[in-house]
């Protein structure tokens, strides 16, 4: 069999999905975007002479993910010292895995979204999802594009853009532009309160993990109820407001956590109910049942331990992430940000 000529050269970057991965390849006169779906491949060609622009947007979740990984890793390290074998081995391994993941994540660097524009399409390039990878790929792609199209001085390009912007602002719009709804300013007080109380709740859970006490558990339950109230107010307040998208998502994630926590609490209640089903004195006395639930220690059952770990990890990571996101400077735009990337560039003509 004749040796196949190496026609394509792979660009840096590989985005793995559930059933395949995305890669980019440099050909003689085009760039090939390949979607490998394990049993088949799909191809898209971008000819160098047709590429008008490549644009990226930095995704601002780098610090949040790093904080979450660091928090989870620290928690597991803490558990390693406080538990005996075999749990200490398990938590040791988990802390190692999380720490290793954190190191890899920090080395990989901030993530981004990359789009390529031609005269007829704007396509996302999923494999260029790290800033470092994008820079390396562009250093290889740019010479090919310049070879096909020629070079234009940066000043000339900027002059052309300024001219087009001026022409567009002077010309009548062909159609009414889609304007984002005017957003209400929100100072995020309820969000700050919710996340701060969530951290406090995390502290109570962490203390209750090592020192089980009915009063502490009861206090923790009251705090959870208060957080639920402030959370619902925060969710109402963030609607149609200028609260950052990250904060909104984290608020919804916290709501999701409380829904799961509610379900888990009821499961524990049912476990105690069925354990004491023969004892009518206990099951008919709700106060006694509540006391038994609050008295449950993580050491008593793996399920309860799992619930505690889930609560501790969730409260700390959501609380810290929420407060960090709220500290970021708000945008000057009064509009709600759009998540659509397809309208990234309009024709310059």
């Amino acid at each position, binding site marked *: 069999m004749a040796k*196949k000529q*190496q*026609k*394509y050269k792979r660009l840096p970057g590989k985005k793995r999905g559930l059933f395949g991965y995305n890669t980019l*390849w440099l050909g003689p006169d*085009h760039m*090939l975007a390949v979607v490998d779906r*394990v*049993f*088949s*491949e*799909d*191809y*898209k*060609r971008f000819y160098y*002479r047709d*590429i*008008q*622009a*490549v*644009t*990226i*947007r*930095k995704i*601002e979740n780098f610090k949040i993910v790093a904080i979450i990984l660091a928090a989870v890793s620290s928690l597991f390290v803490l558990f390693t010292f406080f538990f005996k074998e075999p749990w200490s081995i398990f938590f040791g391994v988990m802390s190692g895995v999380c720490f290793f993941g954190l190191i890899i994540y920090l080395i990989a660097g901030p993530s981004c*979204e990359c*789009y390529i524009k*031609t*005269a007829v399409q704007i396509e996302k390039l999923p494999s260029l999802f790290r800033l470092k990878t994008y820079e390396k790929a*562009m250093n290889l792609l*740019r010479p090919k*594009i*310049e070879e096909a*199209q*020629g*070079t*234009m001085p*940066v000043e000339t*390009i*900027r*002059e*052309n*853009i300024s001219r*087009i*912007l001026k022409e567009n602002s002077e010309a009548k719009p062909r159609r009414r532009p*889609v304007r*984002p709804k005017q957003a209400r300013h929100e100072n995020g007080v309820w969000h700050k309160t919710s996340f701060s109380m969530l951290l406090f709740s995390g502290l109570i859970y962490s203390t209750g993990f090592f020192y089980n006490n009915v009063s502490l558990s009861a206090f923790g339950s009251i705090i959870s109820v208060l957080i639920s109230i402030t959370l619902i107010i925060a969710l109402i307040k963030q609607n149609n407001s200028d609260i950052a998208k990250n904060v909104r998502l984290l608020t919804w994630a916290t709501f999701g956590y409380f829904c799961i926590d509610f379900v888990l609490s009821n499961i524990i209640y049912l476990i105690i109910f069925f354990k004491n089903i023969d004892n009518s004195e206990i099951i008919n006395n709700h106060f006694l049942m509540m006391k038994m639930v609050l008295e449950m220690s993580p050491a008593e059952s793996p399920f309860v331990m799992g619930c505690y770990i889930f609560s501790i990890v969730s409260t700390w990571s959501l609380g810290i992430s929420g407060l960090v996101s709220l500290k970021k*400077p708000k*945008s*000057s*735009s009064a*509009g709600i*940000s*759009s998540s659509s990337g397809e*309208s*990234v*560039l*309009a024709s*310059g*003509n």
Partner: protein
Amino acid sequence: MITCIKCMAPLGAEVVNNAELSQCPSCGVLTKVDLFPAMFKEISAGTIGETLITDNDASCFYHPQKKVEVSCSECGRFLCALCDVELDGKHLCIPCLQAGKKKKTLKNMENHRALYDNITLYSAIGSVFFWFISFLTAPIILFMIFRYWKAPTSILPRTKVRFLASFIITIIQIGGWSFFLLSLFAG
């Protein structure tokens, strides 16, 4: 006009072709735009072809009233400017373009390929875990290996190592079943 990916606000010239990321003046997101000369290239309108004036001139195969510009590289039919499709330096008519895409003779029109080597390899590996079905799957996989050995797999550089690996696994499975059946009948 260049707009921000996130908030669609217009971006000024100061954001274009910068070495570093710049903030969108509207939403503050860090963005970078690399513009190329093709952005300002005028896209010329296509031509509909010249009308045939004299009977001495050849006419387009698909438009008898239009003058011939070029002939199809595949079938040789005369084509007017409207019917001519230029691809990879070749001039093609629409039916040849469609046929080329369908028969996969035009490499640059291919946008999908089945990876038979992956199909045979993952099937062979899967039948190792579900060994009881390997009695049926092993011959099928072996047939597929021979059937698609020379078939084009990926347009990217690729070796036959997957086919070889699935061949080895399948041969072992067939050998195992043969041994089992022989020992069964031998008593």
